[in-house]
């Protein structure tokens, strides 16, 4: 497989600093980079019409198209439920994926079971495709665990909160795949903000030098909490790949078909010995950064309105309808299914048992007995018992 021409066009455009008047060093260097339509791989327009692209195409069966739609509706529904549960005090926090459903479902559905995924903290749609129960995700945000699923069960690593760290883990895992002579690939998710972290550049570099089978999948949702992308980069991010020696592609992140097509290509490229690929899914964080955030402090709602017109679900629905792949009844069935899921989660969260604290604190610090941990666990138990005794006696 050779590199597709469209996927590498960094460089020349990168060097557009010349001639700019200096205004002061900490004012951003440029306005927000224009979305140049030509750069963006798109196979489904915001209006739900199929588009052609010289390098990427995808041929999904009607059933697959319905599946993608169903996936997106389900994850949007449970994401919304989580926001509600947080407002009700059932979760400590939630990071909503609203608006990023196509980027996540499209990329996740491009993967094989033996591929491995390294997510950030917002990949609920990817988790869904890797069969992680949304209830387990909610448990993490409720505070009963730092994750709770077994990453090796579905080749889906734990959420990583320290920005960028997981990209290096992904590369290491991919190095291991190559050593094993396996033909799986790895996907490392990260955000536009994360691209500024040294770890992410080191990951690009290790992957390039070792030609590792890893796809760096950036969801450029335009914001890193309150900071717009011009605080993170000055030229479109996908162009960074070329400087590290591998292809970069920008795809319409709200177009589930284009995302799946590009990711499939990238994974194939990686697994067949082509080395890493950077995919920049150009999308938008429709909600707050997390439930504690207040976007009205830093962005205009007009921007959000603009992006509503590019909604990933509405877009696929229009296609399904236009092409007669699904009808009103089918859409209603999906909605009902989503409601059922929401109910299960609501009930599940509300009745979620609290774990035993001492086990949560002490049991997995080390794999084997450890003198200090044992000592502290014993002290904790003695104290807890004395408290319980005191309470029985009427307390202090």
């Amino acid at each position, binding site marked *: 497989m050779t590199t597709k021409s469209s996927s590498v066009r960094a460089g020349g455009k990168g060097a557009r600093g010349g001639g700019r008047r200096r205004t002061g060093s900490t004012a951003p260097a440029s306005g927000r980079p224009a979305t140049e339509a030509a750069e963006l791989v798109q196979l489904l327009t915001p209006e739900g019409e199929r588009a052609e692209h010289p390098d990427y195409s995808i041929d999904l069966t009607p059933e697959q198209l319905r599946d993608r739609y169903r996936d997106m509706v389900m994850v949007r529904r449970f994401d919304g439920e989580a926001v509600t549960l947080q407002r009700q005090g059932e979760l*400590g926090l939630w990071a909503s994926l609203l608006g990023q459903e196509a980027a996540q479902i499209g990329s996740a559905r491009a993967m094989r079971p033996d591929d491995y995924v390294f997510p950030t903290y917002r990949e609920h749609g990817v988790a869904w495709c890797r069969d992680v129960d949304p209830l387990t995700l909610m448990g993490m945000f*409720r505070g009963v665990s730092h994750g709770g699923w077994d990453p090796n069960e579905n080749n889906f690593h734990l959420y990583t*909160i320290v*920005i960028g760290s997981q990209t290096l883990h992904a590369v290491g895992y991919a190095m291991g795949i190559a050593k094993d002579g396996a033909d799986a690939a790895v996907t490392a998710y990260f955000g536009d903000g994360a691209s500024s972290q040294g770890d992410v550049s080191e990951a690009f570099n290790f992957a390039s030098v070792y030609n590792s089978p890893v796809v760096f999948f950036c969801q450029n949702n335009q914001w890193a909490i*309150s900071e717009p992308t011009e*605080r993170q980069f000055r030229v479109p991010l996908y162009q960074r790949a070329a400087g590290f020696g591998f292809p970069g592609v920008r795809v319409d992140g709200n177009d589930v078909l284009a995302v799946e097509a590009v990711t499939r290509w990238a994974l194939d490229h990686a697994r067949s010995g082509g080395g890493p690929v950077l995919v920049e899914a150009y999308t938008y964080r429709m909600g707050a950064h997390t439930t504690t955030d207040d976007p009205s402090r830093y962005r205009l709602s007009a921007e959000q309105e603009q992006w509503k017109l590019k909604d990933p679900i509405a877009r696929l629905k229009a296609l399904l309808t236009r092409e007669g792949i699904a009808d009103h009844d089918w859409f209603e069935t999906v909605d009902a299914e989503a409601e059922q899921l929401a109910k299960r989660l609501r009930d599940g969260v509300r009745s979620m048992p609290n774990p035993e*604290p001492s086990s949560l*604190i002490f049991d997995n610090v080390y794999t084997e007995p450890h003198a200090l*941990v044992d000592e502290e666990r014993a002290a904790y138990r003695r104290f807890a018992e004395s408290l319980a005794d005191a309470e029985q006696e009427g307390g*202090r």
Partner: protein
Amino acid sequence: MATETMPLMKAINAGLRKALEEDPKTLLMGEDVGRLGGVFRVTDGLYKDFGEERVVDTPLAESGIVGTAIGLALRGYRPILEIQFDGFVYPAFDQITTQLAKMHARALGKLRMPVTIRMPYGGGIGSVEHHSESPEAYFAHTAGLRVVSPSDSSDAYWMLQQAVRSDDPVLYLEPKRRYWQKGALDTAAEPSIGLHQARVHRPFEGDAPADLTLIAYGPMVKTCLDAAAAAAAEGRRLEVVDLRSISPIDFDTVQACVEASGRALVVHEAPVFGAIGGEVAARITERCFYSLEAPVLRVGGYHAPYPPAKAEEEYLPGVDRVLEAVDRSMAY
């Protein structure tokens, strides 16, 4: 009359404003410190009033934040950095320990690093992983840094001024669970207490020496004061030394207290093993060997990663654990 009652967080905000007003070379830098005003709103309003040249949203890269601040300091600026959460300081660890802390010594005194690093720390707010840690021991062990932590609104304001004015790098640790704790602040009169002096609270009646000296800083000062109040109700006299500074530590004050009381207990949220409590205990024992009625005890976090929120109450030292340790000490 400049005395007001305000939450600790607002006192920091007022302190930052003062620093920006007084010295045109000061700047704030960090993630989301600008338009958003920080994830806790500690820098609220400053971007609006001082503009993006003074209140600088940075790329998402902690090493970059500290590294460029070093360069700005070399150019004569006085950067005040924000690290968004305790658990995110580690990418900057190299720049802090090998560059920022050592620059003055490396240059035989010819370069100065007037950089303040603000960082919310500690647990108790029900947060997700990496948002509740107490990494102060790493920094206290690092020569060249000064490490301080206020426990009330007045200290929050005034210690910030002293930190910013210092020509040494200062790590200014903000007890995030106390951000909303109200306290009096007189912005007109600078207190005479130095940045590295401890303050002694004796929340009990009479002048007789305390039965035991509690030693704490930052968020645990309130916990210890609560414990002392509870103990006072039972007739036990606990004094509380608010260290205020973790590096250096005002051991003269500590020594005077413990020589009188004969018993000491150090309390912090950080895991006990290898933390500041050990240093304090060891040094008290060196200085007060013949006065000690009991070994200096320590109450703190366990040797374990900070647990999920549902277990944090059990992980964190609370009044009960403090009093249990007091009992153990008194039993000697």
